[in-house]
C-alpha cells in the first residue's frame, strides 16, 4: 500500500511510475491479451459457417432413364454438406426438365422471390409458387408475379448414364445453388 504522491519540486508534471500504476497497467494488458486469446476462437467458431469457398459439389441425381424426354420431374438428393443429425432436412428436391437426349435444365425448388417451394403443372407448363403467386414458364424464366428473376438453375453434367448436378447450398439472390 505504498503511497505514490508527486515528487516535490519535480520540473515536469509527468505521472510518476508507481507499483500500483504498473500493476493496473499489467492487469489491463493481461486481460486484453486473455480476452483476445479466448475471443478469437469463439468468433471463429461462430463464423465457421462462412467459408471463402462456396458450398459447391457434384451430386448424382439418378439414371438418365428416370427422366423421360420432354418432361419435367421432381428429383431429390442428399445435400453433400451435412451432419448426421440433419434428419430429413438434408434431402433437397429439384425439378429436372429433360429437353433432349443430352439436354437438360435442372431448377432449384426455391422461388426466386422468397424461397418457397414451386410446383410444376405439366398441363399448363408452368411452375407456380404457393406463397406470393410467382409463376415461371417451363424453361424457368419468370412468367408473372413478384419474382425478380427466373428460377435458380443448377449446372449439370452427364456422366455415363447418370445425371449429375453441381450444388450444395440454399439458393438466394446473393448466391447460386
Amino acid at each position, binding site marked *: 500500500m505504498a503511497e505514490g504522491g508527486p515528487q516535490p519540486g519535480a520540473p515536469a508534471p509527468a505521472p510518476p511510475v508507481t507499483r500500483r500504476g504498473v500493476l493496473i497497467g499489467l492487469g489491463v494488458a493481461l486481460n486484453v491479451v486473455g480476452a483476445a486469446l479466448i475471443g478469437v476462437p469463439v468468433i471463429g467458431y*461462430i*463464423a465457421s*459457417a*462462412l*467459408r471463402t469457398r*462456396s*458450398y459447391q459439389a457434384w451430386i448424382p441425381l439418378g439414371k438418365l432413364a428416370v427422366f423421360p424426354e420432354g418432361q419435367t420431374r*421432381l428429383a*431429390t438428393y442428399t*445435400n453433400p*454438406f*451435412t*451432419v*448426421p*443429425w*440433419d*434428419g*430429413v*432436412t*438434408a*434431402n*433437397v*428436391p429439384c425439378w429436372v426438365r429433360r429437353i433432349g437426349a443430352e439436354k437438360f435444365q435442372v431448377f432449384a*425448388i*426455391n422461388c426466386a*422471390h*422468397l*424461397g*418457397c*417451394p*414451386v*410446383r410444376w*403443372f405439366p*398441363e*399448363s*407448363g*408452368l411452375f*407456380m*409458387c*404457393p*406463397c*406470393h*403467386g410467382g*409463376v415461371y*414458364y*417451363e424453361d424457368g424464366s419468370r*412468367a*408473372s*408475379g*413478384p*419474382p*425478380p428473376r427466373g428460377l435458380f438453375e443448377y449446372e449439370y453434367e452427364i456422366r455415363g448414364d447418370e445425371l449429375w448436378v453441381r450444388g*450444395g*447450398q*440454399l439458393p*438466394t*439472390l*446473393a*448466391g447460386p445453388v
Partner: protein
Amino acid sequence: MSAPAQPKGRLARVGEWLDFRLKFRESILPPIAHPVPKSSASWWYVFGSATLLCFVVQIVTGMCLALVYVPSASEAWTSLEYLNYVQPFGWFLRSLHSWGSNFMVTLMTIHLVQVYLFGAYKYPRELTWVVGCVLFLCTLGMAFTGQVMRFDQDAYWGLGIGVAMMGRFPVIGESLVHLVLGGPIIGAETLSRFFTLHVFAVPGLLLMLIGVHLWLVIKVGINEWPMPGRLVTRERYSDEYHELVAKEGEPFVPQGVQKDIVFAGIVLVALFACAAVFGPAGPNGQPDPTLIETVPRPDFFFLSLFAVFALLPPYLETPLILTAPVVLVALAFLLPFYSNTGEKSWKRRPGAWILVIVVFLCLGTLTWLGLSSPWSPDMSAWSGTPTPVEYVKGRTPLELQGALVFQAKQCRNCHSLGGEGGMRGPALDDVATVQTRDEIVRQVLQGDGNMPAYGKNLKPQEVTALVAFLTAMHPAGEPAQRSATIPARPGG
C-alpha cells in the same frame, strides 16, 4: 415483513438472522414501497407488469418444454409429437407456451401504445422508452425464433423466407445467409442456432434489460396521469414531480400494486382458458423439404409482413427490405428526442391518436389480408373445385370443352368461378361484360402483369374453346362486350 415488537417468535428470529446478512430491509424494501403518484394506480398502468408476468410464465413453461424437446433437426419434430400425445400435460405446456407468447406480444403492444398516448416517454424517461423498444424487438425476436423451435414445414419455409430476404443485401448477402443458417442449407446447425438464440441469448438479454427497465421506472419514477395543459419542461419537471409525489403519493406496495395484482390474476385465468380450449399450435407436417405439397404461412404477428411482400411492387421490395426496418426502428428509438417536452395528455395530442389509429388500421388490414392471402394461387382448385352448374348448363359442346380447358390448364388456381378458386386474378363470372372476345384472346395468349402468357402452352383449338367458354360468361340480362370496330349483326 417485520414482526411486531413483541416477544419474537422463531420465524421472526430467523428473519432477523437472514436480514442481518442480506440487508433486504434497507436495500429491497425502499424500492418496493417507494411512493408513486396516486393517479398512476390506474387500470391503464397494469400492462407493463402483465407483460412481465407473461415472461415469467414463458420462462417456467419453456424450461419444462426443454426437459423433453430435442433441439436436433432429426428429432425435434418427433419430440414435439411426443410432447403432444405421450408426455403427460405435454400438450398443455406447449399450449401455455404458445399462448403465453401471444399474450406477451399483445400485452406488450398495449403497454407500448399506452406509454405513447400518455406521453410517458418524454423527459426525463427517454432511456426507459429506448430500453422498452429494445425489449419489444427482443420479444418479437423470441416469437420468430420460437416459431422455428416448432420445427415443422412452416418453420422450415419460414426460415427460407427469412434468409431469402437476407440474400438481398448487397455484397454481404451470401455470408449473412450462411451465418444465420450455420451452413449452406436449412438443417441441424440452423435449428441449433435458433435454439441458442431462443433459449440463451435473447432471454439473457431480456432479463438484463428488464432489470434496467425496472431500475429506471423506480429511479426516475412512474409517469403521473397526464393532465391536459400540464406541460413538461426540462427546468421544472423534476421538482413538480417530486412535489406531486410528496403531496399525493402512496407506496407502490401495497396501494399502487393492487390493480396490477388483480389484472395478473385475470391474465393467468385467461391464459389457462385459451391454452386449455384452443390447444397447442402444430406442429404441422415434418420439416422435409421434399414434401413440396405445402402452403407455408407465418405465425400471426408476421402475417402483416407476409402481406406486405405480396403486395409491394417488385422493384420496391429490395430497397424496402434493406431500409424500412432501420428507418422504423430509428424513428421509434428517437421518439423521446424529437418529442422531448410539452404536452403529455392524449387529449391534446390528436396527432398521436391519428398515428396509432392509422398504424393499427394498416396492421389490421394487412393481417386480415395475410390470413386470407388472396394473392396465393389455390394450388388444387383446378382439379378439386367443381365448376358451377349454371356455367355448364345449356352450353355448346365448344363452350363445355372450354370449361374443361379452364380447369385443366390451372386457370382456376388464380381465377374464381362462383366464388370458388384462386383470388390471384379477377373472378371471371362476368368477364364477357368487361372484355371483348379479342381482348380475352390477347389476355390469354400474351398475359400481362400478374398473369403468365399462355400462348406457347395452349393449342389453337384449346384457345378457341377456352375463349368460347369465357365469352359466354355474362349474366342473362347483360350482353357480352363487343368490339366497336365490328359492326353488330342482327342476332349476333
